[in-house]
Every structure is written in C-alpha cells, then in structure tokens.
C-alpha cells in the first residue's frame, strides 16, 4: 500500500479506492432493488403470492452456475391483493359476476383470469377487446390498470350456465408480477348440497401409498404423495408418455375437501382457494429416478370444471369446500429422451395455505378422492396411474365420473413428538398370508409406551413381530404394550394366517391405532388398504327414488 496517498496521473490512489467502493456499494444496492431483493416487509398472514412455475418441463431449478440459463428462486413479493366478487343471478338464469381487485399488487397493472363452468354459453365480458373466442368459459383481462388506491376497474362477466346445472363454480385468478391469487365462487341453483350429502353413506377410509401432510410454517402445509415402482414396473418413455397424455387429457383429477376462509355460509360468497402458486412453492408432479434426480416436472392447476361435480356429489362439510387439481393441459409435455427406468418414483407436491381457517388447519382430516371420467380405470399402456387409482376403495360413480376414496389426509406437524407410520396398499390372494408393516417413532426425548388396537374385516388371526425396515424378524414376537426408547423407533410387522380360500373379493381396510399409555387422548392411527381378488369396476349410480306425499285429507263421514 505504499502507493496510497501517492498522486499519480489519475489522482490519489486512495481516492480511486474510495470511488470504486462507492460504485460497488451503489451497484450492490441497485442489484438488491432491481432484483426484487429488498421489499417492504409484510405483516400478518402470508399472502398467496408470486408467479406460476416458469417452465413446465424438466429444467434445473437453481439460481447458480448450473447451466447457461437457470431458474431463480425469488423473494415472495409483499402483496396483499384480494379479489372481490359480487354475483347476481338474473331471472333468465344468466349469472353475472362483478369483479374488482384491491390491495397492494406491487405494480401498476395485473392480469385477471376467469374460468367458468363447462357448457357456459353467450359469455359477455366488459373491458375485453373483441369477441370472446372459444372456449367461452375462459376469459383473460390483460394489464388491468391499478390506480393509486390499489384498485382495478370493476369488470363484469356474465354467461348462461348449462340448463341442467344446479351448481356452478367459477374461479377468478389475479396474476401480478411474480405472484397470483385465486378465489372460487360457487353459485347454487338448487337445494343445498349439505342436505343431500348428509344422507350419503360414510365411505371407508383408504390410504394411497405414502401420502402425508407436513407443516411448513404457521399456516402452510405440504401435501406429499409418492407412487413408486416397488412392483418392478419398468418405466419406458412410451409408458411415461401414455401416463402424461392421460394426465394432460383433462379427464382425471384429484378432489380434495379443504377448510376455506371465510367459511362461506352464503354460496355466492367468494372464498380463497388454498393451493399456493409461487415461484418456489407450486403444485406439481415430479418423476424421479433412483438417485433422486428429477427427470420430469408436471405442473398442476385447478380443474375448475370439476368443482361443480365435487361440490354436488362428494360429501360436504360445513366451512369446507372442494377443489379439483389436475395436470396442466397446455403446453403438451413430452417424455422424449427419458431413459428406461427400473426404479422410479412419482411424487406429488401440493402446498396449501390454510391461514385464516381454524387453527390454520391443524388436526384437520381432509378427504381426498382420485377421480376419472368413465367407469373403468383409465387404460394407460401398462396401467401406470390405474395402479394407484385402482387400489382405492370405490365410493362413487355418477355424472359419468368415478371417484376412488376417500383417502384421509391428516394435517399434523411431522415432528409432533411421536408418530405411527406406514400405509400399505396390497392385493391379497386367498390361501396366502398377509404381511403389513407399520412403525412407531418417538422424538420426545423420553421413552414412551403404547397400546395397540387393530381391526380388519378378515377372518384371520394376526401375529406381531419386530424387525427392520426391510423385513420382519420372526424370532422377535412382540406383545403390546410396546415400549419405544427415547429418540428410537420400533418396527411393527403384522403377519396373518393364510387367507381362507372362500374370502369374498373386494376391498377392506386394516386400521391400526396406537395410544400413549400415559395419555389416552394421545393416539394416532394408520390404515392399510387390502384388496382381495381382481379389480371390480363400481356400478353406475342407481336410479333415485322419491317418495311424494300428497296433501291427502281423510274425508269425515
């Protein structure tokens, strides 16, 4: 540093250092501001914000020097935009929504999208240049200006719903710079669905292989389901493409009943849909290989056209609404170039924000159905999805749609203290024994003792063994109560006698409950779906019979 202070041709060296330092600080500050790296802090519940997934195909999701171009994990902008919808049902049956977006949008304009019911006709929209081209149940208002008060103009959309629809569902989505938010507006045109649903028989809970929900933060949950290739089904590019085509064909979807905010006592009142669509957290299916490398990503989107069906035909509950999710139908994805995989796994990642609902959903059990159009399971080459769908308890067939479920999705923190895990789907063959695996994990830091109760509608005796994750240890029979050491685990292998040859075909559920002996109210349960014999398609919905009571008056003599 001898040069410091030396006056040269360009001036003092220390002055140059100072100048350059100031320049660097300015550039750094500019990077922070231009790159949305610094934003006003938000308070309260997390908004459902930020943009759609950038690229729907398999891309490296990183922000670093992994390739020539990369995805960027950006900050969730501090927005609190809300969609306000006022709905009018006209005497001629037309439905009219007046929609306005208010709140901090983080920009001077937003895009607003409407997705109405299938079969909507004569759609008219304000603030929309030109005629509305098919499909007329979708309209997008681009670059709606946001004024200084954070309000957009009020736009109007009106349409004639299908004449036989007693319930229609509309989804409005506002898209800002890097964020989006949706609301669902249901319009009831018949008798309340709760009354109809109340008379429905309760369906048997049934699990799909390894489906869990884990808490991400105070209000957000990760719904995580995995379908793997334990049955040694080699996945080829053709088979993958079959599955992808089916998923994108708009004929299969998952229906999930979720608590909503506000609870929407009035059917026309809008409510917030809980699925999070942000740059980091967006619903998707992912195909992984043995090493865990993500080979293909399929974004999911709302299937608004099935909301109506779900609200009408699947069991309802106060304060809860159905949503339908399916793979994006556009752009068309491809499995081209996928190597042949002996071991593969499909993971579903759906992030839910239940902020505003009671306890942010803590402890709620959300029924989940897998549905497809038609009566037979979808044929997909070598039955990729049907393996997951066909194993579920059939509970409903109507409107030309078959739904399998419910699969209960319990919202509870993953690290609550202890956990009863394991959830198997198994085809059973009479005369062979049944083996089911569950496990207890204790994170409490102190030993715990559990009683076990189980029920299974099969005329077989069960024995319980310990063992490893891979196999039971027949030399280690267990007798409840079961003690699990601090921060330890205990494998529970249930092995039955051979299944009698005259066991009836069809589904049944093995339900296991573990209860902490020191606290009878501290219990968890897990279930396995057992299917005896071949797949039997559910019968179509029976004719409904109505009894009519006429105002008869007994004539007095």
């Amino acid at each position, binding site marked *: 540093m001898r040069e410091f202070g030396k006056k040269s041709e360009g001036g003092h060296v220390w002055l140059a250092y100072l100048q350059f330092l100031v320049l660097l600080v300015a550039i750094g500050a500019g990077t922070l501001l231009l790159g949305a790296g610094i934003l006003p802090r938000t308070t309260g519940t997390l908004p459902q914000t930020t943009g759609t997934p950038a690229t729907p195909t398999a891309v490296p999701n990183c922000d670093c020097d992994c390739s020539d171009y990369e995805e960027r994990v950006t900050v969730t902008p501090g927005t609190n935009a809300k969609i306000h919808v006022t709905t009018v049902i006209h005497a001629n049956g037309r439905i009219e929504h007046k929609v306005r977006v208010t709140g901090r949008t983080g920009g001077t304009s937003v895009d607003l999208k409407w997705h109405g019911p299938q079969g909507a006709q004569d759609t008219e929209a304000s603030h929309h240049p030109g005629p509305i081209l098919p499909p007329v149940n979708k309209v997008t208002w681009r670059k709606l200006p946001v004024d200084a008060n954070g309000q957009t103009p009020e736009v109007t959309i009106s349409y004639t719903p299908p004449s036989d629809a007693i319930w229609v569902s509309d989804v409005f989505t506002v898209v800002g710079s890097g964020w989006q938010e949706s609301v669902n507006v249901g319009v009831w045109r018949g008798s309340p669905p709760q009354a109809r649903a109340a008379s429905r028989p309760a369906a048997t809970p049934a699990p799909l292989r390894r489906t869990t929900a884990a808490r991400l933060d105070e209000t957000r949950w990760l719904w995580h389901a995995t379908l793997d290739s334990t049955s040694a089904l080699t996945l080829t590019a053709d088979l993958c493409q079959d599955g992808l085509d089916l998923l994108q064909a708009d004929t299969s979807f998952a229906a999930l009943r979720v608590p909503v905010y506000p609870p929407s006592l009035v059917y026309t009142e809008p409510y917030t849909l809980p699925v999070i669509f942000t740059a*980091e957290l967006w619903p998707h299916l992912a195909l992984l290989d043995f090493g865990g490398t993500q080979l293909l990503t399929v974004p999911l989107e709302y299937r608004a056209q099935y909301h109506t069906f779900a609200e009408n035909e699947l069991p309802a509950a106060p304060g809860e609404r159905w949503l339908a999710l399916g793979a994006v139908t556009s752009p068309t994805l491809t499995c081209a170039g996928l190597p042949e995989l002996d071991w593969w796994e499909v993971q579903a990642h759906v992030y839910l924000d239940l902020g505003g609902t009671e306890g942010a959903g803590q402890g709620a059990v959300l029924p989940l159905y897998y549905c497809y159009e038609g009566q037979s399971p979808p044929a997909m080459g070598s039955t990729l999805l049907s393996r997951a769908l066909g194993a579920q308890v059939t509970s409903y067939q109507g409107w030309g749609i078959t739904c399998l479920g419910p699969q209960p999705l319990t919202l509870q923190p993953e690290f609550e203290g202890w956990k009863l895990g394991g959830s198997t789907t198994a085809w059973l063959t009479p005369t062979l024994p049944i083996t089911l695996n569950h496990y207890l994990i204790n994170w409490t830091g102190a030993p715990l003792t559990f009683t076990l109760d189980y029920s299974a509608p099969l005329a077989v005796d069960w024995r319980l063994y310990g063992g490893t994750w891979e196999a039971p240890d027949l030399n280690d029979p267990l007798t409840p109560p079961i003690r699990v050491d601090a921060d330890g685990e205990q494998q529970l292998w249930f092995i039955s006698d051979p299944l009698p040859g005259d066991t009836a075909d069809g589904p049944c559920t093995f339900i296991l409950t573990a209860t902490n002996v020191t606290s009878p109210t501290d219990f968890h349960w897990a279930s396995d779906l057992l299917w005896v014999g071949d797949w039997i398609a559910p019968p179509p919905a029976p004719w409904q019979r109505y009894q009519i009571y006429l105002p008869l008056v007994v004539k007095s003599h």
Partner: protein
Amino acid sequence: MLPIFNLGPWQVSTYTAVNALAILVAGMVAFHRLVRGLDQPPQVVVRGATLIILAGLLGRYLVRAVLVVQDLVRGGDLHWAGGNSFVGALAGGSLAWLLYCRRHHIPLGQAFDLGLAAPLPLGQAIGRLGCLAAGCCFGKPTDSWLGVYLPDHAGLWAMRYPTQLLAAAANLLIFFTLLAMERYRRRRSPPHPNPLPQGERGLSPLPWGRGRGRGKTPPFDSFLFLLYLGLYCLKRFVLEFLRGDALPVLGPVSWVHLYTVAIMVVVTALIASNTSSVLHRKGG
C-alpha cells in the same frame, strides 16, 4: 433455509444480499490487484473494473432475456421468469474487459490474470452461501456421512449433499491455489530489468495474452486465468454428480459435464502448449 431476512421495515432476499456482498468483496480484490499490478493510472482501472462489473451483471441477466423473447414469440406473453447465468456474467464481463483493454493498450493477459482469475472464485465462494440460504443448486438426497439436512429449491428438506458448501469450499481452494501459484511464480521469476517488447514474453495462447510482461504473472500471461477456468470446470464437473438439479442427457452425464470437459480439454491443451513454448524458448 433463510431465503429472506428482515431488516427493519424491509424484507431482504438473502441470496441477492449475499451476491451483492460477493460483488463488493471480489470487486475490491480485483481493483486492488489491478491497481498494483497494472502500470495504469488508477482512474483507468476504476473505469475498467466498473465496466467489468456492469457488463457482467448485464450478461448475467441477458441470457434470461432470450427465454423471455422465446416465450413472447411462442405465447405472446411478455413475462420475466427471473433467473441469471454465471456463464453469461463471465462472458459479458470478459468481453467488456477485453474491449476496454484493447482501447487503453493494457496487456490483456495480465489484465485477465489480475482482474478476473483470483477475484472470481472468491466471489463465487461467497455467492454460494446465498445459494445455501435460498436452497438453489441443492444436492441429491444421500445417506452418506456427507449428508446435511437441507432444503431443495421447493423447500423439501432431506439429508442431502451440501453442494453449496462444497462448492464454496472448492472455490476458496481455487482462490488460494491461484494466489499461491502467483506468489510462487513471482518469487521464482524476478522482474526483468528491462521490459520485453510486445510479444516476446507474451506467450499467452490467447490473442489478448501477449502483453508486456513485468515478471509478475509467469509462466505466461493469462496463465492464471486459464488455470482458473480449468479448475472451475473440474470443480463443476465433480459437483454435478452430487447435484439434485442436474439434467442428465446420457446416463448420469449431464450437458454441464460435456461443456466442462470440453473447456478443460481446451484449457489443458493451451497451458501445455504454451508451457512447452516457454521451455523451448528457455532451452533455445
């Protein structure tokens, strides 16, 4: 992991903040080296170093603009999906620096050795900590002893290879290796009493490397920069096997493997050929 931190009434992206810090530190190191190593007035260096950074930032985001245009052409939707590219930054910064040096008759090889070779890995080492905070560039899940409980870009926590930390450590190692190499060569090669004419000592394989040597960046100008490229590609090649976001094109080989191998081959050939030329001249 910690994608955002609160600073009073502001929410700050950890990733961007750490990157800004990386630019600050690496920029100051580059500036210091250029002021001391180049025989140029400080103001010339100030302008040049500023130009490198601005052009690097431009190149970093310009690559993503290609995707924006692509989306615009395909779907008519103008939408900035975010993202950046280190390769774009390197190309942008290098091109600007090259043109600037040409204009001011600065020996290019020395300029690249001093201004880019050592500061870049230092900046990358710091920047990787931002990746760790954001969860990008995440590693594959693993049961090995290397596993650290970390999230991926989607916030899914698992025992993963800590690729960001490994990359940061590797970049630091490259940084110190380059410094050690520079110091070692400087000790072994005392300055010439008289500067050699243009091209005499400029044994650089790159056209811009034929500068007037002062005996400070042997064995040939741009050697350090080439060494940095080679070591960076080697590091990238190895870590790509551990990354969870690698996109394989042929078995476990991704296209990053392919281009890093290509660069390593070219760099190795250039270093070998020019070292051989140096030895030959000495022998002759």
